[in-house]
């Protein structure tokens, strides 16, 4: 499984990421999720979110999750970027792409990964006004 993980302070260039996708003749399905910072956080208007990360543990927990995902679904490639530090409203804080042979697997694997990430990867949101 191709695996690329980044915890980055820079803004996420989604077009460039999509443009750099490697070719495959066995993956029929590519599913890509972007989490965007909303202007309302728990019904309060915010200008952005400050993401705090315990980086070494976050990387380890991400890799444990990817190991588990790889064991459960035939994922041929996973690329994930989580932005850390200040992210203004309207910008992408999470970008994650999976490639699998078939469509159903891509939906199941990606939904599972994001759900688990939100339980296990030590990142915290601090809205800024």
């Amino acid at each position: 499984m191709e695996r690329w993980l980044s915890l980055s302070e820079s803004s996420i260039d989604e077009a460039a990421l999509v443009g750099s996708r490697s070719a495959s003749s066995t993956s029929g399905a590519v599913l890509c999720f972007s989490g965007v910072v909303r202007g309302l956080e728990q019904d309060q208007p915010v200008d952005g979110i400050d993401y705090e990360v315990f980086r070494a543990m976050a990387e380890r927990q991400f890799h444990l999750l990817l190991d588990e995902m790889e064991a459960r679904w035939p994922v041929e490639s996973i690329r994930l970027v989580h932005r850390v530090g200040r992210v203004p409203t309207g910008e992408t804080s999470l970008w994650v792409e999976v490639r699998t042979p078939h469509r159903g697997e891509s939906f199941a694997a990606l939904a599972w990964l994001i759900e688990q990430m939100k339980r296990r990867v030590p990142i915290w949101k601090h809205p800024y006004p």
Partner: protein
Amino acid sequence: MTMTVAVQFWSYFASLTGTRSVEVEVPGGSVVGELLDAIYQRFPALIPFRSSTLIAIHLDYAAEADPLPAGAVVSLFPPVQGG
């Protein structure tokens, strides 16, 4: 025989304790729960969050019954919320 354990606080636990890390002396052979008792005595502001507190030893999640290895770095933090 006591041992020294480093404890790190993340997210709003750092605000509640007023610090990002402390060193704590515990008896040799202590488990994580005994360290937590010492922490809650020193930082009672954390007590209301006990049931949802997440615990890691180094980079892995741990439970209150787990043994504390010598030289452990323990992290305490509220529920995570990436994404």
